[in-house]
């Protein structure tokens, strides 16, 4: 019987095995570039240039 009790107690895993290994990390932040942005800047540049030209 003592052996049986022993089996019951050893079969309950330690806290070590019970903690969650599942740590939830926050997402990475990637730097972004975009052709659209570049294009709108270019377009803005063109508009600005033409305005300047007109002023002249």
């Amino acid at each position: 019987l003592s052996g049986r009790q022993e089996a019951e107690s050893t079969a309950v895993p330690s806290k070590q095995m019970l903690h969650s290994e599942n740590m939830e990390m926050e997402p990475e932040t990637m730097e972004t570039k975009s052709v659209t942005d570049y294009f709108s800047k270019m377009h803005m540049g063109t508009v600005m240039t033409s305005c300047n030209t007109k002023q002249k």
Partner: protein
Amino acid sequence: DQSFHVRYRMEASCLELALEGERLCKVGDYRAGVSFFEAAIQVGTEDLQVLSAIYSQLGNAYFHLHDYTKALEYHHHDLTLTRTIGDRLGEAKASGNLGNTLKVLGRFDEAVVCCQRHLDIARDLHDKVGEARALYNFGNVYHAKGKSICYSGADPGDFPEEAMVALRKAAEYYEANLFIVKEIEDRAAQGRTYGNLGNTHYLLGNFRNAVIFHEQRLLIAKEFGDKAAERRAYCNLGNAFIFLGEFEVAAEHYKKTLQLARQLKDRAVEAQACYSLGNTYTLLQDYERAIDYHLKHLIIAQDLNDRIGEGRACWSLGNAYTALGNHDQAMHFAEKHLEISKETGDRSGELTARMNVSDLQMVLGLTYSTNSSLLSENKEADYNHDETRSRTGRRHSMENLELMKLTPDKLNVHK
């Protein structure tokens, strides 16, 4: 005139293809996005800013698709290009992306160099947003480095010194980031930093601090109505409360995680929450509830064809039934755990399962043979010998290979 026309047409179609690639990536179809970007490169462009934007987006698309070798290749092309044309802001961005990719690939020292370049340029350009982002990336690299040195099976706060040094550095970078993102009132960035800072303190064994940071993260997640971030915070809070020994509080947080996982229809996370709840109720010695949650976990693991998860569920169920004294059910799950760990090549799991099966064979043998005193005595003697082995085995790491020498012989005795 003819060649100008051809070149004009090519530039136009390169742009059209890139714009379509951009649109597809924005809606999350990275696979299709990649094809358009690659087609755009095939056509070619003489505008190096456009080419840089294509390389960068290809790198990010491959990053999202978890093809890190390809991501590395394109972010590297982008870095070379931006340096050639002297585009400092572009170089900073390429360095940041390259650093993140190298981090995922476990190449931490190179990642650190990239983060430093990102940070230096951002500071040169007085770009506060860029500086904060570089500091966040730095923190992530040191966090990942620290975590990679933590050996499995060790408790948080109990890792090798080298891991602790990296984790402390991560905390420093996150703190530096937090200072800036508070200054520029970027709440979303604050939320991310609080979350990872909480996880870093958790690994450092500062569980009270971890709770404080995760509570801040939770607050911001609620502000934004960001359910996924809210779920992450609850899960991380649950983990920290386990180590504070506040199991009831941990269970409440895991229940919130479960609720949100169901709302978000994320089956894998739902399974994880059930598993955590099962373990928490085991710690509370409420084995009926533990079994209930482990069974829920088992069902989802089977649905998702997750054999490793299924094995873990069987192991946990075996333990819980043993604790309740239901040795027949315990044996059923221990045998299933053995079968699955053999199939998945999980050596330490197989060893644990073999020990559990042999322990249970002993207990069941004792129950069935109470009428024969001689047999009982023999079994008892054998059992005690067995116990000495299995207790030692459990006390040490489960990956202790010394046990392998003992196990086959012991199994033959019982079979």
